[in-house]
Each structure stands twice: as structure tokens, then as C-alpha cells.
């Protein structure tokens, strides 16, 4: 009896294919039993999340079992046979390794995310309650959960932001804590400003002000963010109240000078101020960073921090993979 996995995920199938195979949480047990019948297998677990649908089976003869499921699933869901190209097929140790990677968040769209652990646990519990699992899948899943926990406790796979926008948001949180009391001003309505501001809003930023040379564009972006547009000439007045300034104008020279910030200091009562300059050439005079309560980060610094995080994450991935291999060697799982 072999351990098999047939599945599709965000990397192998577009959403319009994935949604055809999606199974609701309440139907996972029932679907697992149905899979046992469809594949003529002895055990089955169906995992279904927004990014993946996977079928784990204990069955004889991998090739025949895969063919049976693909044909019968295509008939049941009424899709043509071309859908088979979106599936990946894994057997024995490969299938166990894949399950461990999934549980550990290594196969997720957002690397290291923890939600998948609970989703797989729920899928397994549903199949177990429905009587669709037996000696092989029970042991494989239990061990995979153990490996997943080990990966999370012994590595820091989730730590560190790997994009410029997220690095900026993490820094904002390091300065201001919860962003619910923080106000943000965007200078220039470019794409990078929009993305970074959106990240700040998604983490709870209180309000957004958009100043742009084209007021229409400022209004457009402000509406999209649920903020307010201000005239470009008025950005210095707004500086007196905001905590974070994201600047990304197309100006060929610095538009925020030390004197501009010095003027606003008294009215701000010298509160911390975080400048994110993602424009090239830079919008903010580097001398602004010399003001005591100002933290100034330009695109190069943010990119360097993101790059360092990417390097650290790559090392973490390698460590995770090593843990999985070592654990799989030790476990001697049935069906592998």
C-alpha cells in the first residue's frame, strides 16, 4: 500500500481551475469518503484551501490510482481532460515530504504562514471523524504535524519583510507601535506610494492625506485609500499633524528640505516623524535625517534591508528543508 498525493495549487492552476475543485470545510469528511470510493483506495484525506486542493490516499498501484481519480474527478466536476495538466502527482516519500512542506508553510503563497497548519489539521480531523483514514494516513499526518511544529519552533521562517513596502511598514510599527493612532501623508501619487500606503492602511493607519501636483490624481488616490486629498502647496501644513510621510514624486530635485521640517517641529511638539523616500532622484534632502526626532529611510536603504531579509529567509528555507529531511529519515513512515 502506497502513500499518494494528487493536487493543484496557486503555482500550478489559476483561480478559475482551483475554484472548481474547492471543497467547503463542512464537506471535507464526506469528500474524503467519496475519494476512497472514487480511487478504490483504502484511506483518503481531502485538503482544500483558497490556494490548494490536495488529495492524499493510501492505495495500491500509484499510476492506476492517479488515473482513476483524474478520470472520475473530471467526470464528476464536468471538466475536460486538459485539467490534468494542472495536477501534480507525488508518491511515497515524495508525498510525505510534500505534506510536511505544506504543513510547515513552505509551499504557501505567503512563505511560512501559520494558517495552513490549522487548515490541514481540520481537513485531517474531518476525514478521521468520517472514518476515511486508517493506519497509514493517521501516522503520516500525525508525524507531519510534529514536523511542522518543529520547523516553526526551530526556525524563524516567518520573520523579516522581503519587500520594500513591508520593510517600511515594519519600521513604522517599530516607531509608532500600533498604527491606529498614526496619520500618513503621501507626497506624489505614484504606484510605489500607493502600495506602501495601502500596507500602512491594512495595518490600521488612522488617516491618509494625499498631496500631488495634479489634484485630480490626488483625489483619485485619496478616494481609493479612504483618505483626503490636499493641495500640493499645503503639504507643509499637513506635516504638522502626520507621523509618517511617504514621498515618491517625479521631481528632479529634493522637495522636502531641512528648513521645511524645522518649521513644523514646534507645532508637532517634537514628536517622532518617519520619512520614507522611495523616489529616484530623492525627494527628501538627506539633511532632514539629521533632525533629532526624524527617522529617514530612502529607497536604497529599504531595498538593502529587504535584500538582507531575503538572504536570511533563504537560509531559513534551507534549514527547514534539512529539518524535514532529517525527520522523514527518522520516522520510517508507512506507505513511503
Amino acid at each position, binding site marked *: 500500500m502506497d502513500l499518494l498525493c494528487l493536487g493543484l495549487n496557486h503555482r500550478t492552476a489559476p483561480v478559475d481551475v482551483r475554484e472548481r475543485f474547492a471543497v467547503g470545510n463542512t464537506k471535507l469528511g464526506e469528500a474524503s469518503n467519496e475519494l476512497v470510493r472514487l480511487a478504490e483506495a483504502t484511506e483518503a484525506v481531502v485538503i482544500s484551501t483558497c490556494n490548494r486542493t490536495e488529495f492524499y490516499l493510501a492505495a495500491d498501484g500509484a499510476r492506476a490510482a492517479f488515473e482513476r481519480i483524474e478520470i472520475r474527478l473530471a467526470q464528476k466536476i464536468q471538466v475536460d481532460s486538459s485539467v490534468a495538466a494542472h495536477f501534480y502527482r507525488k508518491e511515497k516519500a515524495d508525498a510525505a515530504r510534500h505534506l510536511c512542506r505544506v504543513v510547515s508553510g513552505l509551499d504557501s503563497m505567503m512563505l511560512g504562514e501559520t494558517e495552513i497548519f490549522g487548515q490541514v489539521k481540520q481537513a485531517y480531523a474531518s476525514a478521521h471523524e468520517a472514518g476515511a483514514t486508517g493506519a497509514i494516513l493517521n501516522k503520516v499526518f500525525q508525524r507531519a504535524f510534529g514536523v511542522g511544529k518543529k520547523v516553526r519552533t526551530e526556525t*524563524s521562517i516567518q*520573520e523579516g519583510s522581503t519587500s520594500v513596502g513591508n520593510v517600511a511598514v515594519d*519600521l513604522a*510599527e*517599530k*516607531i*509608532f*507601535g500600533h498604527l491606529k493612532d498614526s496619520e500618513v501623508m503621501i507626497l506624489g501619487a505614484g504606484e510605489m506610494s500607493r502600495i506602501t500606503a495601502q500596507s500602512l492602511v491594512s495595518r490600521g493607519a488612522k488617516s491618509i492625506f494625499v498631496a500631488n501636483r495634479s489634484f485630480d490624481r490626488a483625489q483619485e488616490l485619496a478616494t481609493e485609500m479612504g483618505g483626503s486629498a490636499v493641495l500640493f502647496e499645503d503639504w507643509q501644513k499637513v506635516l504638522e499633524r502626520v507621523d509618517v510621510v511617504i514621498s515618491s514624486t517625479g521631481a528632479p530635485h529634493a522637495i522636502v528640505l531641512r528648513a521645511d521640517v524645522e518649521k513644523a517641529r*514646534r507645532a*508637532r*511638539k*517634537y*514628536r*517622532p516623524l518617519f520619512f520614507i523616500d522611495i523616489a529616484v532622484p530623492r525627494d527628501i534632502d538627506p539633511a532632514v*535625517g539629521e533632525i*533629532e*526626532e526624524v*527617522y529617514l*529611510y530612502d529607497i536604497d*536603504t529599504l531595498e538593502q*534591508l529587504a535584500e*538582507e531579509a531575503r538572504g536570511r529567509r533563504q537560509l531559513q528555507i534551507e534549514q527547514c528543508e534539512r529539518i524535514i529531511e532529517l525527520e522523514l529519515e527518522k520516522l520510517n513512515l508507512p506507505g513511503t
Partner: protein
Amino acid sequence: MDRWFLIAATLLAVVGGILGMISVHRSKRNRLTVAWMIGALLCQIGFLAVRGESRAACPLHDRGEILAFLAWSLTLFYLLVGPAYRISLLGVFTAPVVVIFQALALIPGTLTANPMKIAGGNPWHETHSAMSVLAYGALALAAVAGVMFLVLDRQLKEHHLKSGLFRNLPPVRELLISLERLLWLGGGLLTIGIVAGFLMPHTSSAWGHLIAAVAVWAGYIVLLVVKQVRGLTGRRLSLSAVVLFVLSLAVFAFV
């Protein structure tokens, strides 16, 4: 017996501080720091209880007792306000200060070996001593928060963001809010201590001490008023909290 309590409290703070520092170095938080500091607090209470029993008064009658009381006050405020910070990290910064105070108290000759009963104690005198030392506990913790801010501020300014310490430090704004609250608390307690100091009977030789106390109190009040009315950068507020605390300790060591 009292000495053993103080030695045990010092050792517990040393262990808590070292384990906490190791955890911070490894980018992890050690929640046990708080347990070690609770142990240290219990031993400090044991020490103060034994000395209080011997004195039949608040044990603030020699330099060793004052330092031990100050260490107790600092530990107490750390455990009370710690949850506002990441508690274990504040412990890492507080433990060395507690250890220094207690180690100084343990230097032979600092603690009176056989404390005498204090006859005819005055309630204003007791209030003055207890409130002043409690105030210094809060102000010491404010100075600790100030040091934490200065470390974080430097790392953020210079873009050195990789250390375990950086990851474990609380946000700038939270540190500054806690620092200001501790200054207000310390300032309030010190005010009560000063008022009690004027109401207690004192000899002419005590005037120097009272004037020094008033000068320290005035320093803190000016700092708080300036912060409230005009505003102050985090760096200046923190530096002032640290400098004022060190100065006030120096003043009382010599006046």
C-alpha cells in the same frame, strides 16, 4: 539573616539579567526574567522586613538600607509597569541597576551590622524617607526606559536593524509614553516626600539635604513642564531622565 536575603536577591537579579541578555542576543524573549525578578522582590521584602523589625521603623537609616529600599522600589515598579513594555526586556535593563544598588549596599560598612531601634520616630520623617525612595524607584525606571529609547533611537537613526536587541525593543512611541508616565509618577511621589520633609522636625544640618532634594525635585518638574508645554524630542527627554537620575544619586551620596 538580613544580609542573606539581600545576597539572595542580588543573585536572583544577576541570573535573571544574564538569562534575559542571552535570550535577547538570540533574538528570543525570555519570559522567565519576570519570575527571577519576582524572586528577587520577595528576598528584598524579606530583607526590609527583618531590618524594619530591628529598627522598629521604616528601614531607611543607613546608606545600605536606602540602597536596598531603592532596589526594592525599582523592582516593584518594574513589575507593576512592566506589562506596558515587553516585560522581559525591561527586566534585562532593570536587573543590572538592581544588582549595582544591592552590591553597593553589601559592601562592608554600608549596612549597619547591628541596627539599633529608632526611638521617638516621627511620622513626617518616615513619610519623607519612604516617599522619596519610592519616587527614586520610579525615576530610576524612567532612566532605564530612557536608556532603552536611546539605544533604539541610535539603531533606527543609523539603520542598524539586525540585532536581536532591536527586534526585542518596544516601539519608540510606547517607550516615550511609559517614560513620561514614570516621570509623572516619580515627580508626584517626590513632591509628597519634599512636603513631608518640610513638615518633619529637622536640625540645621538637614537643610543641605533638603535644599538638594528641592533642587532635584525642581529639575524633574521643569523637565515635565517643558515636555508638557513646549514639547521635547525623545532623545532630550531620555537624556534628561538619565542625567537627572544620575545627578540626584550623586547629590544624595555626598549631601
